[in-house]
């Protein structure tokens, strides 16, 4: 069976449920490579991948780099702080210059929402969005789904609560699409100032729930079934100066996964898992106890990130004539 993959991965909306399923299934095979002594498969030999990061990133950039290298692609990192506008070169000129070198894929992180969409319209290469402003971060949503499924099984009918700074989060926007497509129930939790504008009608349209009361969501029984997964989002302290909330202490009391909340939750639902896309603000949105708890999947997410990105690169870059069998059976061909 052949699944048609999009040319670019710009948004989770580019993948239907079947496409997501395919990428997650392949990621399982890729995950095995990680456990080998020789972590190298030839799948993308001769392909060139540029990691074009206009914004600081450690985990996403190195995760993509490792994914490419383990698949034998030539990976090159280009990092540039600030917008190209400030350097006097247009974004279009910057990316067309790179594209003209004949690269196969551009993995792109940019501080501006929509940047990856624009770039995809200007270049020949495949474009993978590694985070665009406060818009989307599709490979994060894929690795979140992968990690949660490994622990919880199918996400169909599971209840995921996403808590934190929704306004400025690209993680939540991608997760809202993928979790709904995988059949999960989603509740987003934040103070009103940290919810994106128009989220009320958005929630009605897409069928997710909203709350400003974390404890109420965590205690929910009956139709609002107990939470199976808690996804805590990073809250940047500088948001306080924007008047989004008064103090860190007040935020933590209202929306932090404190030790106290963790204990109550663990008692109520022993299967609960905790995710965080990182980097964590320990003590603000997540307590050290929660971050390091047995329920915490934080490091599993990082590990899954490489496998999921290998899968994405495989599906976007390798043609139908590049058998995935190379993944499953390859033992000795690594040079």
């Amino acid at each position, binding site marked *: 069976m052949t699944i048609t993959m999009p040319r670019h991965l710009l948004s989770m909306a580019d993948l239907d449920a079947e496409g997501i399923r395919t990428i997650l299934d392949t990621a399982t095979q890729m995950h095995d490579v990680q456990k080998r002594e020789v972590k190298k498969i030839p799948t993308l030999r001769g392909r060139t991948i540029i990691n074009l990061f206009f914004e600081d990133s450690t985990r996403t950039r190195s995760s993509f780099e490792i994914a490419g290298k383990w698949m034998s692609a030539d990976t090159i990192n280009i990092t540039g702080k600030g917008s190209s506008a400030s350097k006097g070169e247009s974004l279009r000129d910057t990316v067309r210059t790179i594209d003209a070198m004949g690269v196969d894929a551009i993995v792109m992180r940019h501080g501006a929402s929509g940047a990856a969409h624009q770039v995809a319209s200007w270049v020949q290469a495949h474009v993978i969005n590694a985070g665009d402003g406060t818009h989307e971060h599709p490979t994060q949503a894929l690795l979140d789904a992968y990690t949660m499924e490994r622990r919880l099984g199918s996400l169909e009918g599971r209840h995921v609560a996403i808590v934190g700074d929704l306004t400025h989060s690209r993680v939540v926007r991608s997760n809202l699409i993928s979790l709904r497509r995988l059949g999960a129930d989603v509740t987003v939790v934040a103070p009103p100032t940290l919810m*994106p504008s128009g989220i009320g009608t958005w929630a009605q349209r897409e069928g997710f729930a909203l709350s400003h009361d974390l404890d109420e969501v965590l205690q929910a029984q009956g139709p609002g079934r107990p939470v199976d997964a808690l996804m805590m989002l990073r809250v940047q302290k500088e948001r306080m100066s924007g008047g989004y909330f008064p103090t860190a202490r007040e935020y933590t009391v209202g929306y932090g996964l404190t030790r106290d909340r963790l204990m109550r939750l663990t008692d109520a639902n022993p299967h609960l898992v905790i995710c965080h896309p990182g980097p964590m603000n320990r003590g603000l949105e997540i307590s050290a106890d929660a971050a390091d708890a047995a329920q915490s999947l934080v490091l599993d997410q990082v590990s899954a990130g490489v496998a999921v990105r290998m899968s994405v690169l495989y599906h976007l870059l390798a043609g139908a004539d590049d058998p995935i069998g190379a993944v499953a059976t390859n033992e000795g061909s690594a040079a």
Partner: protein
Amino acid sequence: MSDLLITGARLLGGEAKDVLVLGGTIAEIGAALDAPRDVETVQAEGLALLPGLVDLHTHLREPGREDAETIATGAAAAAVGGFTAVLAMANTSPVTDTAEAAERILDLGRATGLADVQPIGAVTKGLEGAELAELALMHRSRAVVRVFSDDGHCVHDARVMRRALEYVRAFGGVVSQHSQDPDLAGSSACCHEGELSGRLGLPGWPSVAESTIIARDAQLARHTGSRVHVAHVSTAEGVEVLRWAKAQGIDLTAEVTPHHLLLTQDLVSSYDPTFKVNPPLRPTEDVEALRAALVDGTIDAVATDHAPHARHDKEHAFVDAAFGMLGLETAFAVVHDTLVRGGQLDLAGLADRMSVAPARIAGLADHGQPLAVGAPANLVLVDTESTQTVDASASKSLSRNNPWHGMSFTGAVHTTILRGRVTARQGVTE
């Protein structure tokens, strides 16, 4: 050269008449007029004759960004678009905040011979919103500046706005306000704030940032006894406040752009910076409210906010790209197709909103006059039946940030006449 016989033109879309222009002035209107010797005849059978269009809001980029537009290319775009007068906004480099700067723009405009270019003066020095520019000196200059605006920026400080209004009252000046409270949006706001901006992850301006400034300025106009002109109203909330202020008898006028009368925020979903404009494109409900307000007179005038930009200033990430879109050449077609064809406005109504009212607001005595003997022959012939598709590459503007490319409109400018001289004929300047 400034003599013409126009034959068979339907005056304001009504009865067909001949119009004889001598020495740049309408000399005779009647049936089957004879052309005096050597007078060029413009055959206008089937065309409608309107007073030449007047644009209250144009960005010409000269001085400072002559790669995006010059006064000459902007005037050419104006002529092709049926305009005989345009008001040039002050946000050039340097800013038009002195008498000398204003006179230079006036002179460069005159030299084109294609349209009257009337400079708008800055309200505050350098558009910085702090100290008043030399308003009276600009008014006393040869440019006789009457309209002042910090467009691109809101005159945000209520104290500065109050003093500006008080000060220009001495010579009948008006402040054209970019009504947008910067404190109600982030500094990188670039689209309408609502569900769509939330989904796209773009910072937006809420409607309330516009309506609160209109409300404040209406009260300041009442308090100072001076006149405020509200530039490019874009929201239903803003219209509501305007309607209230006018009902109170407050001296307030307002304009709306062709793009806010037709285009909606959905276009931003593509993240194409061609559709990035300030104020932003809004939802359909706002577009409908703006149309109704223009028809019922709550909004007095259409103004283009023609804002040319070099490609390399638009080809950035959406939040980093420049604001603005072209409008001079397409304004008539858009308004005609949107409102006249649908029967909401007749041609006389269009002439009022695009010529008579803007000339009155700007105090331009030679423009927007009735089609009558003795009036200056600043005129435009339009073809209400012709349907044309916009081709960005055919523009007279130096820039190509044209949101109308590929769209078809019924209603086209045919011939533009400035003081009895043809400036443009079917897209070609003369």
